[in-house]
């Protein structure tokens, strides 16, 4: 039995602060604790890159859907049931052998929640946000993704309204995979553009 068995891990200062604010708001009847739980559950269960992966897999297997996705991202993504705040205006950009796309938010951390969930810490870091526009090729190489000199890198700067999704190139040797299996190989990072599949 560990020494801290009877002593739950202490909350981090920010966690304690949030818990205190939440309890005061509930006590005053301003906040409904069930509503908070519902929102947290929604983020945990329903939002995340698994949604974006389904969008990508559908685009890889359905040419008509791919066309709709590239010409009107928001509506095409809605077709699969994904919508909501931070995803009201979606633009989908396609990687090709000649073009590699990279998404950033230089201002803060704008990110397409309905299809990618919450942004990773590095996405919010000043170093990523500045270097993605200043020296994207070098940044990507440092992140393990080497983009050949002959390939154009297009950086898309998100805003409060416009959110971007990268449609990665379908990897070779995946012709026999089902749509569901294809979704399983699509990573969050590939949909931000910091990884190639």
């Amino acid at each position, binding site marked *: 039995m560990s020494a801290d068995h009877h002593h739950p891990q202490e909350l981090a200062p920010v966690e304690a602060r949030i818990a205190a604010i939440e309890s005061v708001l509930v006590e005053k009847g301003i906040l409904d604790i069930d509503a908070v739980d519902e929102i947290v559950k929604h983020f945990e269960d329903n939002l995340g890159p698994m949604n974006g992966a389904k969008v990508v897999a559908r685009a890889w297997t359905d040419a008509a859907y791919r066309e709709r996705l590239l010409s009107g991202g928001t509506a095409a993504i809605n077709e699969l049931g994904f919508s909501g705040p931070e995803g009201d205006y979606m*633009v989908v950009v396609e990687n090709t052998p000649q073009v590699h796309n990279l998404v950033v938010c230089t201002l803060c951390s704008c990110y397409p929640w309905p299809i990618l969930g919450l942004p990773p810490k590095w996405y919010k870091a000043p170093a990523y946000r500045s270097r993605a*526009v*200043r*020296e*994207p*090729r070098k940044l990507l190489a440092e992140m393990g993704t080497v983009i050949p*000199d*002959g*390939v*154009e*890198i*297009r*950086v*898309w*700067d998100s*805003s409060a*309204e*416009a959110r971007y999704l990268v449609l990665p190139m379908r990897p070779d040797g995946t012709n026999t995979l089902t749509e569901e299996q294809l979704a399983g190989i699509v990573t969050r990072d590939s949909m931000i553009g910091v990884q190639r599949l």
Partner: protein
Amino acid sequence: VRFTSRELWGDGGADGETVHVDLFERYLQEE
């Protein structure tokens, strides 16, 4: 709006890199 890396960073920029920024604002739309 599309900017080339050279337009943004001058000699410090690189070829084959562009930055795209959505500058649309609703108030710019004609009534």
